[in-house]
């Protein structure tokens, strides 16, 4: 266990150094958030129908999204993809360590470090000036915290899977490039999932991506009552197991392929 913790903390500390880059992104996120808020304000002003989410809730959702944007599994592990490109990944693959574990720890660190740097200032500013509301209740707040941990684990698993898919060059490149769009849409980052048509709901509910953004945020707002939490947790657990299992399996197949080919 200590090995993974070491990998995680090393990566985390390294990423924390990129303070300048993190702070620079702040302006961009602020701008994006403002545009989204204005667009929704305009939409809400145009209709008197009841909507699946109130305006103030939507605004909270948007700012939480901007704060936690870095959680999304957009990028593969840059060091590993470099290794794959140069071919030196072969050395990694034949080492007698739990490579998946290490790559997973790195993936998680890659998501957590930039998030921590960006989320706190953004949430403070959004709370003070931009309409971010506190959680619906303290139970919701705690549940949100736990859900966010789950989001991190889920995002890490997806990132790891994307990185591993790079070992299969053509298909992997394709997956790595198309994934961000799929993630953006099905996580609820582009549009809160409740606003999608009713026909979409079964699909988005079945997929794991909503566990990264949509589900935690709705727990925060109190939209998802405690009665639903066990079922959500179970589904998330199943998906995590599936994704991690898939990741491990693909990785071991790569290793075997390499050994057979002679390394």
């Amino acid at each position, binding site marked *: 266990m200590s090995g993974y913790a070491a990998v995680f903390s090393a990566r985390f500390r390294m990423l924390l150094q990129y303070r300048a880059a993190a702070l620079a992104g702040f302006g961009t996120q602020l701008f994006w958030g403002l545009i989204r808020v204005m667009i929704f304000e305009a939409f809400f002003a145009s209709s008197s129908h009841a909507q699946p989410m109130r305006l103030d809730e939507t605004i909270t959702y948007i700012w939480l999204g901007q704060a936690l944007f870095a959680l999304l599994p957009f990028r593969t592990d840059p060091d590993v993809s470099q290794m794959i490109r140069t071919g030196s990944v072969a050395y990694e693959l034949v080492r007698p360590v739990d490579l998946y574990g290490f790559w997973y720890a790195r993936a998680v660190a890659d998501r957590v470090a930039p998030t921590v740097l960006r989320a706190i200032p953004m949430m403070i500013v959004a709370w003070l000036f931009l309409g971010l509301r506190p959680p619906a209740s303290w139970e919701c707040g705690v549940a949100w915290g736990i859900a966010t941990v789950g989001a991190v684990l889920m995002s890490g698993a997806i990132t790891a899977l994307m990185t591993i898919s790079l070992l299969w060059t*053509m298909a992997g490149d*394709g997956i790595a490039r198309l994934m961000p769009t799929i993630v953006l*849409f099905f996580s609820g980052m582009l549009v809160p999932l409740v606003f999608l048509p009713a026909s979409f709901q079964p699909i988005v509910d079945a997929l794991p991506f909503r566990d990264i953004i949509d589900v935690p945020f709705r727990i925060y707002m109190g939209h998802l009552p405690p009665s639903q939490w066990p079922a959500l947790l179970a589904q998330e657990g199943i998906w995590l197991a599936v994704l991690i299992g898939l990741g491990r399996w693909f990785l071991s197949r790569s290793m075997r392929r390499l050994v057979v080919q002679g390394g």
Partner: protein
Amino acid sequence: MAEPIWNRFADAVRLYAQYSGVSLRAQMQYKFSFFIMSLAQLLATATEFLGIWALFGRFGSLKGWTLAEVGLFYGLIGVTFAIADALARGFDTFSELVKSGDFDRILLRPRSTALQISARDLLLTRVGRLVQGIAVLGWAIHSLPVLWTLPKLALIAAVIAGGVALFYGIFVLQATLSFWTIETLEIMNVVTYGSTEAGQYPLTIYRPWFRAFFTFVVPVASINVIPANLLLDRIGTSGWPAICAWSSPLVGFIFLAASLQLWRCGVGKYTSTGS
């Protein structure tokens, strides 16, 4: 120079074409990568519009604008930005040239610096975004209950041209900043991509200060509400008279001309303070 201006222009175009040919051939070597990236862009922009469609499904209208009308705005800016992004790649990556000192080499060649930079790179992969923009624009034009006269279609073409000039000018401005600071200012990224995001919708839906910025500082309005009001037969409901609508594409060109002037100042500063 005694050379007639037409000859110089043709000469510049020839050089530009030669550079572009080189750039395109280099990119076509990576066929699969090109295909995948274009597909990814297409998918990304398609889901974007899917989101807008979904929201219209819930809310019905956006401050009086219909989905088809928003489609016009979205398509216009999508097409415009895709073309500008592909053409202005050289300026987009200009700060690398300054950092590496390779700009000196540009100065040592007997051609305008702007021409050399602009010809440097032609990014093919923007085609994904371009295709999606054309699709949405085409759909919007088809669905809108508007009589599409020839002058109106000509105005659309002019608006696209003006928009390309506008975005090109923004890229030039971004590059010019590299003469004064090595740090890539996040502000400029916000202006470039932010203008694209903001311009997808009619500017009237935003708060007044936001609208003012994109009308008078970075005149996105000239490729957004000002001509659109005329195209959608909404003249009279907004404050801009028809003559503004017809001449709005010019704004982009004026912006580009101003940016190129600033570029020349930047080059002057570079040559007097060294790298």
